């Protein structure tokens, strides 16, 4: 059998066994653990709470309770305001860093990129805990202020305030914002900026009219990856926020813990996802409106 068999086109030879084996792990995880699990939340949100796992009967009472109780409006609004402040603070402070990385860093770029991404991989709980020891009554900030003579006695004003939540979250999620903005800035062709200055644009004008609009996709991506985890956070409010900064994540967590009303917790979760969906759509719209590449 020395005949040379013409090899079939490479792609046509794909064995179905290989394809199934390669698709199976991802399919199981994405369909079962993500889609089916989220579907369960949606299903449970429309059930009555009878103490059983999947509730009983179909009802919209959970959503009616979410909408009619002013407590949930207050907490949702507070979560949105805190998340928006955190997002604004992280993106605005991260932008110059990303700008430096993209245009000025030179040989130090690799090292700086490494330094700004490193905290990304350290424990989130420890980063929040660090702020607890900074802000506490007998903590670092108070003792440093007294030691240096600026303050005469420790103050309770730092810990257990919404401001503490904003600062802590902004610090904990800071590394998330730099990379997307940097990638967007780095892909702007340098010729575009040179053309602007050749045509007589002052540096600020060329930044405002050329660099900023072209980096908007990165800015919006950064805003999204900071906004989403912060709006549902329950750890930071619990550690440094005190009762005045309860967030929507705290309430959801309570429904699956102490309050033991899973269907209501599921309804709250669906409400949060709807809010996030709305924010994503607004971001998409803003991207198309302001971020279009010329």
């Amino acid at each position, binding site marked *: 059998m020395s005949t040379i068999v013409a090899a079939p086109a490479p792609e046509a030879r794909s064995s179905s066994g290989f394809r199934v084996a390669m698709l199976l792990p991802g399919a199981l995880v994405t369909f079962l653990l993500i889609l089916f699990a989220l579907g369960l*939340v949606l299903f449970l949100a429309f059930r009555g709470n009878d103490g059983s796992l999947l509730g009983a009967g179909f009802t919209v009472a959970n959503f009616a309770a979410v909408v009619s109780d002013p407590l949930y409006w207050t907490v949702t609004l507070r979560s949105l305001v805190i998340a928006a402040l955190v997002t604004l603070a992280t993106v605005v402070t991260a932008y110059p860093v990303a700008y430096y990385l993209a245009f000025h860093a030179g040989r130090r770029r690799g090292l700086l990129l490494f330094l700004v991404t*490193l905290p990304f*991989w350290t*424990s989130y709980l420890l980063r929040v805990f660090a702020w*607890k020891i900074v802000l506490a009554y007998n903590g670092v900030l108070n*003792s440093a202020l007294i030691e240096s003579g600026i303050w005469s006695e420790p103050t309770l004003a730092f810990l257990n305030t919404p401001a503490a939540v904003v600062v802590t979250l902004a610090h904990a999620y800071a590394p998330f914002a730099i990379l997307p903005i940097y990638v967007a800035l780095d892909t702007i062709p340098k010729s575009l900026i040179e053309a602007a200055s050749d045509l007589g644009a002052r540096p600020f004008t060329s930044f405002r009219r050329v660099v900023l609009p072209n980096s908007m996709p990165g800015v919006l991506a950064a805003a999204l990856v900071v906004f989403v985890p912060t709006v549902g*956070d*329950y750890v930071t409010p619990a550690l440094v926020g005190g009762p005045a900064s309860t967030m929507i994540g705290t309430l959801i967590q309570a429904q699956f813990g102490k309050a033991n009303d899973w269907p209501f917790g599921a309804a709250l979760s669906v409400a*949060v996802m709807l809010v996030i969906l709305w924010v994503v759509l607004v971001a998409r719209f803003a991207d198309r409106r302001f971020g279009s590449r010329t």
Partner: protein
Amino acid sequence: MKTTRTQRDGRWLGAYVIAYLVFLYLPVLLIPLFSFNNSIQAAFPLQGLTLQWYATLFGNSALTSALLNSLVIGVIAATGATLCGITVSYMDLYGRSPLAVTISGIARLPILIPGVIVGISLLILINLIGLGPSRVAIVLGHILVALPTTVVIMRSRFAAIPKTIREAALDLGASDWTTFRRVMLPLSLPAIVSAFMLAFLISFDEFIVVFFLAGTEPTLPLYIWSQLRFPKSLPTVMALGTSILAVSFVIAAAAEILRHRGLAAAAPAVPLQPKQTKRGELQWHST
């Protein structure tokens, strides 16, 4: 004139970047600082050097079992997440099927879901299938949390391998399986190791999801959380936190170096896809 102006801007920005890095690192570095401080309170002035808080870490059976739990769960979850990351991104790029592209898209979806909702959705699921809060449940949760990272890393790695290499293997008669195992996997080995290490770190440090899925055996972050209520155990938590930070820094540094080296070694002399970032940074915005 123009150059000096740019240089001056650069210097101002450089100063800002340094201030930013101080803000980023200073609060975290307070934990190691006070872990060596001979006082139960984390406050200035420092009271002198001590290693006694590190001594309390040894012989603590609750801590040891939490550590073992975290290690075992981390290794298994990272293996699962890396396996899924490899197959999902490979099929996304070369599978030529809409299903594979859909799976890859959904796999990166958890970035757009707050951790608390990932946690409760899995809590409902594991109770429904009769598993209940357990270590297996935590492994499933952590595979999910680490999945976007492993998919993004593996995808940028596979995309950086010149297409011609895979086509050459197929033209020379290698089967899909052989091409994958003998050509594509060895070429992306640094990225695989890097993805595994980062997935391990994510699992090892993860708190928000594990909070809902843990049964009677806590992981290390859950142990820390349980200790935060007691002011007396604050120094021990700081000694433990310092150890965790040190390990995280080393693993993350090794993973980053591997990822960059792997990408640099395989990058063709002339970039084939200029839109692909050279270093293969995590492209979160690709979702």
